[in-house]
């Protein structure tokens, strides 16, 4: 453990205190729009904390998914909320408002201070130095097919977690679709600036996603970051008023959404049928398997995130 300079300590404490302060202001702000904006800023500061903790993969994922896409989802939900409240207030003039005010806030506060003290005590009593699983991962890195240890863990050693995770993402989309989506917002037609921005940025974002996919094998990057960039491209296109061809919205959309988890499931089945453990790749095919799985996953994740932002279930084709 190297001795840290005063400068590094100042930097760390600024980030730490900034995180706490931003979280407090975001949660306590009386206006919801300000709360959402502060939450996005909180996510960006978290990315700095990840970099400080030597976790560039997490930093990329946090900025793209945690700050960017979550911010877009929150702002879209806030817009739907204000229209729903306005519509309901016009229809129902009874004037009954429920303003839930907890008059006794000190009891939860005292309870949580005790919880915080307990958690801080357990954090402080953890041994200050522990190798965790880094030794085992480093020892087995050459048979994993990639040289970035996080990608190796995500796509190879703990591929089971990743399989379940993309299934959860698909499940969330199914949940949103089965709720029927919300009435489509009457957005203003996109002006020339937004139009040009979408046209210029979409190819750049697709290239960036491909770069993240490729570089994730030996440097920070990977399928989730690539999928998040593709999702951002989808959100940008949706905001600029682009809608996919109606023929795409039926079967091809579902195929793209299912491609990532489906391919993963097929691989899992194959490994079991071939007599290996679940998701144990043969070392000589591990690299190409990871590339194929990551590409399918990135496509599915990007499409799922853009579909989550849109929220509306694709309309059934009219039956003649």
């Amino acid at each position, binding site marked *: *453990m190297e001795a840290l300079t005063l400068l590094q300590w100042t930097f*760390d404490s600024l980030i730490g205190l900034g995180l*706490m302060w931003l979280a407090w202001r*975001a*949660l306590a702000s009386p206006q919801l729009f300000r709360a959402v904006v502060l939450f996005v800023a909180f996510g960006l500061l978290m990315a700095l904390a990840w970099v400080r903790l030597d976790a560039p993969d997490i930093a990329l994922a946090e900025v793209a998914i945690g700050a960017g896409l979550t911010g877009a989802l929150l702002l879209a939900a806030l817009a*739907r909320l204000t229209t729903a409240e306005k519509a309901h207030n016009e229809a129902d003039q009874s004037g009954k408002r429920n303003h839930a005010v907890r008059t006794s806030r000190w009891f939860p506060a005292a309870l949580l201070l005790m919880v915080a003290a307990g958690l801080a005590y357990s954090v402080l009593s953890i041994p200050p130095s522990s190798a965790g699983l880094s030794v085992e991962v480093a020892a087995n890195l050459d048979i994993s097919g990639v040289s970035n240890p996080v990608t190796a863990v995500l796509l190879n050693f703990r591929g089971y977690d990743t399989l379940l995770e993309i299934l959860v993402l698909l499940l969330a989309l199914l949940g949103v679709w089965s709720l029927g989506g919300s009435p489509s917002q009457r957005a203003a037609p996109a002006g020339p600036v937004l139009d040009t921005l979408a046209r210029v940025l979409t190819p750049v974002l697709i290239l960036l996603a491909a770069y993240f996919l490729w570089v994730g094998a030996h440097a920070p990057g990977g399928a989730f970051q690539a999928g998040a960039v593709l999702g951002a491209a989808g959100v940008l296109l949706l905001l600029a008023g682009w809608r996919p061809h109606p023929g795409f919205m039926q079967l091809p959309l579902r195929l793209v959404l299912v491609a990532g988890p489906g391919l993963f499931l097929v691989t899992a089945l194959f490994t079991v049928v071939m007599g290996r453990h679940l998701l144990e790749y043969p070392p000589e095919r591990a690299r190409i398997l990871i590339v194929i799985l990551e590409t399918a996953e990135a496509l599915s994740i990007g499409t799922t995130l853009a579909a989550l932002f849109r929220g509306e279930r694709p309309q059934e084709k009219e039956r003649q």
Partner: protein
Amino acid sequence: MSPAIFYALVGVGLFCLGLYALIVHAHLLRKILAINVMGSGAFLVLAALAKRTANAAPDPVPHAMVITGIVVAVSATAFALMLMSKVAAETGQAELPDRRSE
């Protein structure tokens, strides 16, 4: 105190702050924000504890778990936001009713 333990303590603070806001606020969007802050605090604890390795490279397994967690958090947030929109469309507000007014 190493930076790892410091960030873990910040994570604990964020988690408890988020939990307090979750309990205290009645508005659903604030609750969703609070859950996200709790999640970020938990991830911070995980990744900070991963940095306790003796050499320079941190433990990659908690990093993978945090990336998984971020994606799951955004899925849950998207679903929760759609549920909140449905509640608002039905009742005209996105707040949980106060116990005393029922």
